């Protein structure tokens, strides 16, 4: 088991954004998290990845209790994420973005850096960063400022940056938003290849086609509660889900 949550709860004032959610996410799969706008998906993963502290319940990662740890500690333990809408370091180059993503895997080079004429940062880290840029198709843009990349390229750069920490669990928050059909097909291939490499992925997504075509299992949230969980076909057939989620989608 990669990640488990037990009765995980997060309140904002009187609003219960995440209400006693139990999840059990097995390793080496893409786990979809869907639900209408405001269902609490992003809040849930903010609690899981350490951006928010839970008000109740526990989070276990690979069997260890990691409830309430801070984001940087969770990254060190093997959880990496991307953000809704994208949060690349716009004023830095694509290469620097990925190298920063490798922070937890690099040895501190401050003292070495003080020695004259020595280039800090080791070859192995540079090669690793370039290999990741290659993997997401950005090798040619290594020296471009991230803020000057096209939107789709920024999303892929953010995934490369997350992968640089060599995570075992990758959380993607609406990675396909704003991507065209070809780009989202490539995203699906990338996710499947990563799972093939042994990663576990939590995918939050509004693009139903992508979720149904990529995930082994899907959980549905509505008003902070988990209302269903199952394989994509089970979810599609579930009347509760149809009413809560797909009904709302049709109107959109």
């Amino acid at each position, binding site marked *: 088991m990669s990640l488990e949550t037990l009765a995980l709860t997060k309140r904002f004032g009187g609003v219960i954004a995440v209400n006693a959610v139990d999840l059990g996410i097995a390793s080496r799969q893409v786990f979809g998290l869907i639900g209408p706008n405001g269902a609490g998906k992003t809040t849930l993963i903010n609690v899981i990845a350490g951006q928010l502290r839970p008000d109740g319940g526990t989070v276990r990662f690979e069997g260890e209790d990691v409830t309430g740890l801070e984001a*940087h500690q969770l990254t060190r333990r093997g959880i990496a994420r991307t953000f809704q809408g994208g949060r690349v*370091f716009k004023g830095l180059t694509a290469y620097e973005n990925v190298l920063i993503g490798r*922070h937890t895997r690099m040895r501190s080079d401050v003292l070495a850096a003080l020695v004259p004429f020595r280039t800090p940062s080791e070859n192995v880290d540079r090669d690793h960063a370039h290999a990741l840029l290659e993997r997401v198709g950005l090798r040619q843009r290594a020296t471009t400022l991230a803020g000057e990349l096209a939107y789709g390229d920024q999303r892929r750069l953010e995934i490369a940056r997350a992968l640089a920490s060599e995570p075992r669990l990758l959380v993607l928050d609406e990675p396909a938003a704003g991507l065209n059909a070809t780009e989202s097909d490539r995203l699906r291939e990338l996710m499947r290849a990563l799972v093939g490499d042994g990663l576990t992925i939590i995918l939050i997504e509004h693009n139903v086609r992508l979720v149904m075509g990529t995930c082994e299992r899907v959980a549905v949230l509505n008003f902070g509660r988990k209302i269903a969980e199952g394989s994509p076909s089970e979810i599609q057939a579930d009347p509760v889900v149809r009413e809560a989620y797909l009904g709302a989608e049709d109107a959109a």
Partner: protein
Amino acid sequence: MDALRDFLSAYSTTIAIVGVNALLALSVWVTLYAGQLTLGNAAFMAVGAYVSALLGRYLDVPFPLALAIGAVGSGALAAPLGLTVFRLRGVYLAIATLAFGEVVRVVLLATPITGKGQGLNGIPPKTELWHVYLTLAVVAYVLWRVQGSIVGRAWAAIREDELAAASQGIPVRRYKLAAFAIGALVAGWAGGLSAHVTFSIDPNDFAFTKAVQILVFAVVGGVPSVLGPIFGATLLTSLPELLRPLKDARDIFQGLVLLGVIVYLPRGLVTLAQLRRTRRLQQIGATDVA
């Protein structure tokens, strides 16, 4: 050679102050590079100045050791202060550090051993030009190398996006605190040097105007490179001397220089070099390279 010697002896105080100001500008550069707007460096400078001057006067502590104690004391003071104020960001952080500066000033004004409002007079002129410029060279070199290291990249990440930096595994609070303490250490050292240039210090030397002046040195010079603060401090400290012939119009001209830099080079004077490069690349049609 004689001409050079005459120049040095006539202007040695100004030349020393240029170097001290460059050190102060570098001290605030560290936090600016990490994206944090702090205005406490005049107060850290005061701590270094008073501690080193008092140690020399009452305990006969050798000059370098007194400087070091002042600088370390200043850095040590930054740690607990940083823990408290780094809950704040942006303008609120600036105001909180400014308030700290006021507290230090008021304490100096009220304490008998620091001479209250009179300050300390007759501080021996122990600072030699080479003291100033050797430490400037060392500090600039160290910061330049740190900028290119894993620590410099972490600071840049925090400046760009704190939330995203934390999820890259960067312990944001620790890195901010380190930047703040390093800045305080450098400012404390510079304060000790300046006290032994100017013979006398009083609490108002380290007030709000000084804090802002230090910030202006760094911002006008430019934060992208460690050369920026050094340029900025050199230009703005020597400008009043160079503009002496303008007499009453001097302040106006200096104001115009400041305004010009901030309007046309918002990232500072060091970006002039980059601008020229970009323009040349555009001329040869190599926009992709830029």
